[in-house]
């Protein structure tokens, strides 16, 4: 398989509008990527005061994924295995600065820390995350990158709300989408950033059905267990309980076209958008 990372990431990069630049001392093995993401109207959450959590998750997965991939070179490239994220504030002035650096580079796995800060709010921390990826060797060898790596997306041509762009539809207590070709990652499977967005939408769908008020995801732990190849892909959330900071839900994502295989399992905390910032 020819692993054309930049072509495969084009649609995702363009929709979320994250510009990425390598700022680490790559010649000496240091890999640090800084992403810049403007707060665009089509990415706003229910309160219209900041980027919706699903988009933030996707941006973090995207920047963290590139960092992990570059760290895995020249031996291989990566596929995300799990993403843990805590959002500190749902209000963003923008642009967001998303910095990803390597915490650990092992033979089989790469661990990346990603922190998003808000340039428009005195560099306040917006979210902190850790992305773990498995190192795999593509049949045709790892992708070629010009270093320092840099990607600048073209303007978004389809600035629709996230659920519209992804083609997400409600299916009773679940949400569902098809696996479009432009949403696949370089490995030909549903992009991790898209899965993360779908988890967010499923969790908000389930909690919103209880609270009947605008909600936002504040915390996600997401395990990628199997690839999404066929579709449609369904995400269903089960609310486990409520606390001062919101409802805790378990989300299961399945590929219906692949024997309903479990693709991902996540735990998410979802809160009312007026509950603390």
């Amino acid at each position, binding site marked *: 398989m020819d692993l054309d990372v930049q072509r495969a990431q084009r649609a995702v990069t363009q929709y979320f509008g994250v510009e990425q630049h390598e700022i680490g001392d790559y010649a000496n093995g240091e890999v640090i990527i800084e992403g810049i993401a403007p707060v665009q109207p089509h990415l706003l959450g229910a309160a219209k005061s900041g980027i919706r959590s699903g988009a933030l998750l996707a941006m973090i997965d995207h920047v963290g994924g590139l960092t992990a991939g570059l760290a895995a070179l020249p031996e291989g490239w990566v596929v995300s295995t799990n993403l*843990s994220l*805590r959002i500190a504030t749902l209000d963003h002035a923008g642009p967001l600065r998303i910095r990803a650096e390597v915490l650990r580079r092992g033979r089989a796995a790469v661990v990346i820390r990603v922190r998003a800060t808000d340039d428009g709010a005195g560099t306040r921390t917006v979210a902190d995350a850790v992305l773990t990826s498995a190192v795999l060797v593509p049949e045709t060898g790892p992708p070629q990158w010009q270093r320092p790596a840099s990607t600048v997306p073209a303007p978004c041509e389809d600035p629709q709300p996230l659920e519209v762009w992804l083609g997400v539809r409600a299916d009773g207590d679940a949400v569902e989408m098809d696996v479009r070709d432009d949403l696949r990652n370089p490995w030909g499977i549903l992009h991790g950033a898209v899965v993360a967005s779908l988890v967010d939408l499923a969790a908000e769908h389930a909690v919103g059905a209880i609270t009947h008020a605008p909600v936002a995801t504040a915390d996600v732990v997401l395990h990628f267990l199997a690839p999404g190849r066929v579709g449609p892909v369904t995400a269903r959330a089960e609310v*486990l309980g409520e606390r001062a*900071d919101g409802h*805790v839900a378990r989300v299961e994502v399945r590929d219906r076209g692949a024997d309903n295989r479990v693709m991902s399992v996540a735990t998410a905390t979802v809160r009312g958008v007026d509950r603390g910032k």
Partner: protein
Amino acid sequence: MTSDPGQEEARSYPPELHLLRDLALDVEHRADGTSAAWLKVVPELLDDTGAVRAGVFATIVDMIGGGLSAQTAAPNWIATADLTLHLVGRATRGTVEAVARVLRAGRTTVVIEVSLRSVDGPLGIATMTFSVLPRRDDNPVLNLTPAAPRTSLVLPGSGFRAPLLAELGVTVVDAAAGVVEVPVIDYSRNSMGALQGGIVALAIDVAAEQALRAACGTPVRVSDVQVTYLAFVRGTLRTSTEVVAASPGFGTALVDVIDVDAETRRTTTARVVATKDV
């Protein structure tokens, strides 16, 4: 026959005086591939609000998840790569039940999910990733019977002699800054000779709780931990904590763990939430 010292050590883990014995867990490996454990809530496990703290659950989860993943990865061995815990209730009495199941059994990782219940209802959910490691002679030897009756590590004389944090030697160096130290002692070592992953999570719990109580101005308790393990802690553990959000109802902190005896190497990083009602 000459005895292999590594094998002898492996068979004798945990030692007679060890946290895993004092916790007095009953463990059962079931034919359906799940494992269950039961913990009796005793006064030594309670915090100043009268409930079992998140770090104790992390320790149980690490233990039962570790057992199940080791069984899944056999004959190879495993090490905890990450552990997350989300609580939705409090355990103040009776018995806590933990049920673990395998979400993914891969060549290089095993992913486990654990659900927790108290006598009063659901307590929370945990997930863990374990890295699969080539077996070494000094790794413990497992009984790989698929379904085993309830077993326990308890020996005559097992049981806490002091509150858990005192038994472990946890010292709060600077509460508001979330600086905590924990020595590595035989009582709290894992089978590799380093600090138990659950105890690292417990230290993170204490550090974040102290810092967030100061920042929130209310007696919040830790309800979520997302722990990423980067290296073993073999020397004294020390935490550093950054509060990134605080309100009277809940707060968020980032905690890093260093090994002060290994050139202050960062061994663990965590994101922690504390809330007032869990």
